[in-house]
C-alpha cells in the first residue's frame, strides 16, 4: 500500500475521531458550565458537593470510568451506546478539569464590577450571566484549548467500546498489511493535522470575540 492509500483508508476513522472529540468537548463544556454556575449561585453545601464530585472525577482514569459506564451500567439494566459512554466518561472527566479552569478565571473577574452590577439591581444570576460569564470564558481560552487537545488525545479510547476511529482503523490496517511504521506515522500526522485545525479554529474564534485591552494587565 502506498502512503497516500494508507492515509485514504484512515480518513474514514478521522470522522469518528472528530465526532468523539467534539461530542466529548461539548459535554465537558456543559458539565463545566453547570458546575461553575452551581458553585457561584448555589450555597455552601452545593459547593462542597461539587468539590467532592470534581475531586473524584479527576482521580479516576478515563479508561476505568469508560468501562464502568459501558460494561458496568448494563448490569444495572442501563444500556449505554458507545458515543454516550464516551461522553459520560471522557466528557465528564474533562468537564471536571475545565470547571477548575473556569474557577480560576472567575476569580480574576473584578469584584468592583460585580459590586457595580449588584448595586444597579441585577440579581446574582444576571450578574453571573451578563458580567462574570463572558469575562470568565475569555480568560479561560488558553486552558480551554489545552483541555480540547487533551480530549482529542484521549479519543482513541473510543475504539475499546467499538467506535471505528483512527486508531481502530490503523489497527485493522496493520493486521492486514503489516506496514505498521507507515500506518502509525500516518496516524500521527492525522492527529497533528487535527491539532493544528483546532488551534486555527480557536484563533479564528478568539479574533472574532477579541476585546481591545481585555486581560492585558
Amino acid at each position, binding site marked *: 500500500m502506498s502512503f497516500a492509500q494508507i492515509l485514504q483508508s484512515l480518513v474514514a476513522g478521522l470522522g469518528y475521531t472528530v465526532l468523539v472529540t467534539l461530542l466529548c468537548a461539548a459535554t465537558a463544556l456543559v458539565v463545566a458550565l453547570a458546575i461553575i454556575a452551581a458553585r457561584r449561585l448555589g450555597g455552601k453545601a452545593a459547593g462542597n458537593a461539587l468539590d467532592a464530585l470534581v475531586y473524584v472525577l479527576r482521580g479516576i482514569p478515563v479508561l476505568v470510568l469508560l468501562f464502568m459506564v459501558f460494561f458496568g451500567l448494563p448490569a444495572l439494566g442501563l444500556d449505554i451506546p458507545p458515543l454516550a459512554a464516551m461522553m459520560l466518561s471522557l466528557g465528564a472527566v474533562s468537564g471536571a478539569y475545565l470547571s477548575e479552569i473556569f474557577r480560576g478565571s472567575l476569580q480574576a473577574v473584578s469584584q*468592583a464590577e460585580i459590586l*457595580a452590577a*449588584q448595586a444597579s439591581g441585577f440579581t446574582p444570576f444576571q450578574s453571573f450571566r451578563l458580567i462574570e460569564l463572558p469575562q470568565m470564558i475569555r480568560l479561560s481560552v488558553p486552558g480551554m484549548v489545552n483541555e480540547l487537545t487533551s480530549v482529542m488525545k484521549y479519543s482513541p479510547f473510543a475504539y475499546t467500546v467499538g467506535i471505528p476511529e483512527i486508531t481502530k482503523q490503523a489497527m485493522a490496517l496493520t493486521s492486514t498489511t503489516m506496514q505498521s511504521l507507515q500506518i502509525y506515522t500516518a496516524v500521527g500526522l492525522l492527529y497533528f493535522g487535527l491539532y493544528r485545525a483546532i488551534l486555527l479554529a480557536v484563533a479564528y474564534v478568539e479574533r472574532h470575540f477579541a476585546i481591545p485591552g*481585555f486581560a492585558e494587565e
Partner: protein
Amino acid sequence: MALLEVRNLVKTFGTKTVLDGVTFDLEEGQTKVIMGPSGCGKSTLLRCLNRLEEPTSGSVRFDGKEMTAPTADVRALRQLIGFVFQNFALYRHLTVLDNVTLALRQLKKMPAALAEERALHELARMDMAEKRDAYPASLSGGQSQRVAIARALAMEPRVLFFDEPTSALDPVMAREVVTLINRLYLENVTILCVTHDLYLAQYISDSIIFLDQGKVRAEDKAENLLSGHADPVIASFFGRKS
C-alpha cells in the same frame, strides 16, 4: 417628607461598631456631601443605604418606604439609586454604549433602540458620546468616570450616590469630573456624595455631613464647616486639608 430619611443607623462588624446611630435627611433635589476621617464609615454608610451591606439596626426610609424591612424589595430600591464608585467599575468586556444600555435592556426591559437613544443622551451629557464604541481599557480615568456617571444617570435614578468619585483621578481629570457633577448639582439632581476632595465638596454641596467614628458630628453648610470651626476635631480635619 424627605426622599431619604436615615434614623439611628447602626452597623457593626463583629464587635466593631462602624456606624453608631447615624441620622440625617436628604430632600429631593438636594445635594449632601459626606466627609470625615478615613475609616469613619462613609463607604459603609452608602452601602447600608442601598443594602449592599445589611444595617444592624435603625431605619432607612426611601420615598416613604421602610427599606430595612424584611419585605422591602431591595433590587427595586437599588434601581432607584445610581451608584458611582471610586474605581469606575465599568464592565470591561462591554463597549461604552453597552455599559450604559445593559441595565436599561436587562432591568427596565427597554427595546434596544430606545435604550441606545437614552444612553447616547446621557453620554452626551457627560461629553462621552463620541466614545460610544470604545472599550473601557482605552479610556482615561476621567473618561471612565464620566461613562460610569452616564451609566448611573441612564436608569433615571431618584438619587445619585458617589463614593469618592474623584480620588482615583489626577487633578486635571478630577476637575473635569467635578465640573460635570457640578452641572448635575445645578440641574437639581439629588446627590449624596462621599469625598475627601474639598474642591468637589465646595462646588456641589447644599450641606456637608461630617462623620466621625460612626456618628454625625456636625451637619452644616460648607462655608461654616471649612474655616475655623469651633469643634477642634472638625477644625483640625479641614485645617489639615486646605
